């Protein structure tokens, strides 16, 4: 994404090393993913040559050795020039000059409905009294597949690391995710890029491939993704994990397959995926071996068989028609459904898709829950909400809306150090998270990264506990939409939550108009 917004880039030339000694420092140009700075090779001078390309990530400011750079957002332009902002103008120029559509990483930006206009209703005297976070227990565990397979997944906290592939992420980032899963008792996911061998034992908390030395307790789980590209997939691959996730779609680019650009297809990635080094690996948008829902059922049947009926089967959905899609997953035999809203992130996607396609996460959950209830499997088939969940507050709201657990994808990258520059697809991530270049990867230590991720999970877990207990609950399974109120009409309309003050759902959500099979919820009747 060359142009996403307008930011003012200021360099204090009184302290800038390059301004004083041309050619002595080019750090800002080296780390900027968008070519905002340019080093003049003749004079050695550093100049801001393309301030319109700045996305406000402030990586340059972080790396500047003398703190000479200031990035300030130029929001007022959105009031004075909208819709023809600098970014809109420059994007048109880019298309006109190159004939190319814009690609970028990360998720939807701007004003997408989210969890922020939902408030939590605390307990007082008219409802069960609040629970004491500091002196009482709160059950945070989630069991997946308890009645359908021999080895259910028992998450110690209601969180997962969603699917992010090796290739999109560096090996170090994948290992950090696995280590943190082991430290916190949650699950990590291979994503569609095959298995990084160490991932299998690190995720379970072991320090060695033989799994003889336990290093991290309580130990976590590894979800093995079965996707449309089938990169690195075999019976052994499936049996190396604790659950199989059937990827149907994802939030940032529903209706499209994974995008891994040639810049990130190294020898190591090529060995796993079978794609030539330097060539784009663009996964199919659908399974070539599925034409009907019956095919999916048969696929699930043989996946269960090949994994010896031991593992739960997850489905991962993009945000399309949540009611009907979740119903289809239930019919296909899912034990858990990860529903990724449009705010979900990605390593690479066409900008028009990430920005303009799909249903906001907050609006996906209620119809999904209704489908689970209509099929009589609510709280049996687990719903995992993904897409733009940033902290324990968002997680609590998603779970009170009806999800059993949540996933932190983008937040995981940020917890590893990412500053959201939207350039994951280019492979130059200065933090080594989404780069395959050795010099970048060397900056990310998997154990340190794993500790940061585990800290993040711990903090979010405590936040969820606080909110659960002040709402009068002993367990996250007791959460319900009654614990929430919408603070504006828009959110009340999208979610069916009671509107704060009015204290009822909007009339369109009242009995007879709300969600039920075939009524305005994406069901095809």
């Amino acid at each position: 994404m060359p142009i996403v917004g307008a930011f003012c880039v200021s360099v204090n030339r009184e302290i800038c090393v390059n301004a004083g000694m041309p050619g002595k420092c080019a750090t800002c140009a080296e780390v900027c993913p968008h070519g905002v700075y340019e080093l003049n090779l003749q004079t050695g001078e550093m100049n801001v040559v393309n301030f319109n390309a700045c996305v406000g990530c402030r990586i340059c400011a972080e790396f500047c050795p003398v703190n000479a750079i200031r990035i300030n957002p130029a929001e007022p332009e959105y009031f004075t020039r909208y819709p023809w902002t600098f970014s809109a103008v420059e994007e048109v120029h880019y298309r006109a000059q190159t004939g190319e559509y814009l690609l970028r990483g990360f998720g939807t930006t701007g004003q997408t409905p989210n969890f922020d206009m939902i408030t939590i209703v605390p307990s007082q005297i008219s409802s069960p009294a609040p629970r004491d976070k500091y002196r009482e227990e709160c059950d945070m565990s989630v069991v997946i597949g308890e009645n359908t397979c021999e080895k259910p997944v028992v998450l110690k906290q209601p969180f997962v690391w969603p699917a992010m592939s090796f290739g999109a992420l560096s090996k170090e980032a994948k290992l950090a995710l696995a280590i943190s899963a082991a430290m916190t008792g949650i699950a990590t996911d291979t994503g569609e890029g095959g298995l990084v061998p160490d991932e299998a034992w690190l995720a379970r908390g072991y320090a060695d491939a033989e799994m003889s030395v336990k290093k991290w307790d309580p130990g976590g789980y590894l979800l093995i993704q079965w996707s449309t590209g089938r990169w690195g997939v075999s019976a052994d691959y499936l049996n190396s994990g604790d659950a199989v996730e059937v990827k149907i779609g994802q939030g940032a680019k529903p209706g499209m397959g994974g995008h891994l650009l040639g810049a990130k297809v190294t020898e190591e990635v090529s060995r796993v995926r079978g794609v030539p080094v330097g060539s784009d690996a663009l996964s199919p948008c659908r399974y070539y071996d599925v034409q009907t829902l019956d095919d999916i059922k048969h696929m699930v049947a043989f996946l269960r068989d090949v994994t010896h009926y031991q593992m739960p089967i997850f489905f991962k959905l993009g945000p399309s028609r949540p009611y009907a899609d979740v119903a289809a997953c239930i019919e296909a035999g899912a034990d858990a459904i990860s529903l990724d809203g449009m705010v979900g992130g990605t390593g690479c996607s066409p900008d028009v898709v990430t920005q303009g396609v799909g249903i906001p996460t907050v609006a996906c959950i209620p119809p999904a829950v209704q489908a689970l209830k209509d099929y009589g499997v609510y709280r049996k088939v687990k719903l995992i909400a993904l897409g733009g969940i940033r902290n324990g507050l968002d997680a609590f709201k998603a779970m009170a809306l009806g999800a059993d657990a949540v996933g932190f994808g983008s937040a995981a990258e940020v917890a590893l150090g990412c500053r959201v520059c939207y350039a994951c697809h280019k492979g130059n991530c200065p933090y080594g998270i989404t780069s395959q270049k050795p010099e970048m990867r060397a900056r990310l230590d998997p154990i340190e990264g794993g500790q940061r991720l585990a800290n993040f999970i711990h903090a979010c877990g405590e936040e969820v506990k606080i909110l659960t207990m002040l709402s009068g609950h002993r367990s996250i399974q007791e959460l319900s939409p009654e614990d929430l109120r919408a603070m504006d009409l828009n959110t009340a309309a999208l979610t069916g939550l009671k509107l704060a003050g009015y204290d009822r759902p909007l009339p369109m959500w009242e009995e007879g108009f709300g969600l039920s099979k075939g009524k305005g919820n994406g069901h095809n009747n």
Partner: protein
Amino acid sequence: MKTMSVKSRTLKEANAELREKANGSPVHIHNVSHLHGLAAGLKHGEIIVEGNAGDYLGALNDGATIRVTQDTGNYPADNMTAGTVIIQGNAGFGAAEYCYGGTVVIVGDAGDFTATMNKGATIIVQGNVGDEAGTYMLKGSLIIVGNAGSNLANYLIRGAVYIGGEYRSLGHNTRLAALEDEDIALLKNCFETYGIAANPASFRKIVAASERPFYH
């Protein structure tokens, strides 16, 4: 000779018995057409399916030899990594998709999207194939003795498609290449091994125009 009938039995029951019996002498299995995913993920053994088979026969096969005396449903040998699947009759849609290794031989015809995303297997169709055969192949060989439909080898990246008959159209990123000695040797070996009466020299070879095509 071991035999088993799986009439009215579930996939779980049938495959459990197959895994137990698939050691040593071949296992002849009857009445299987209602089962989808039969013989999935086997690592060894020789299975002979007497009659027709359902969908996903031998999916994720990892070393077994599976023979079917008549037709299969859709997606036989799906995601196979090793072993051999031989279908004496016709195969449905999407035969031998996503294979990493091994050999698939279809004596009759195969449907659309045969050998899609082949990543290293040798796939031989003695009859005709439908449209989109060999789509997004990354490695391995697709040998078509008969004719092919449209968009043959669409978005081929690596590997080769050999065709003895006619095709309606070639897909994106393809070009015709001259047969080399090693191609003739490969075809000759396959034809001799599986008793196929065809002349290797009369085949055309289709390869990728570029190994690194960019989409955008």
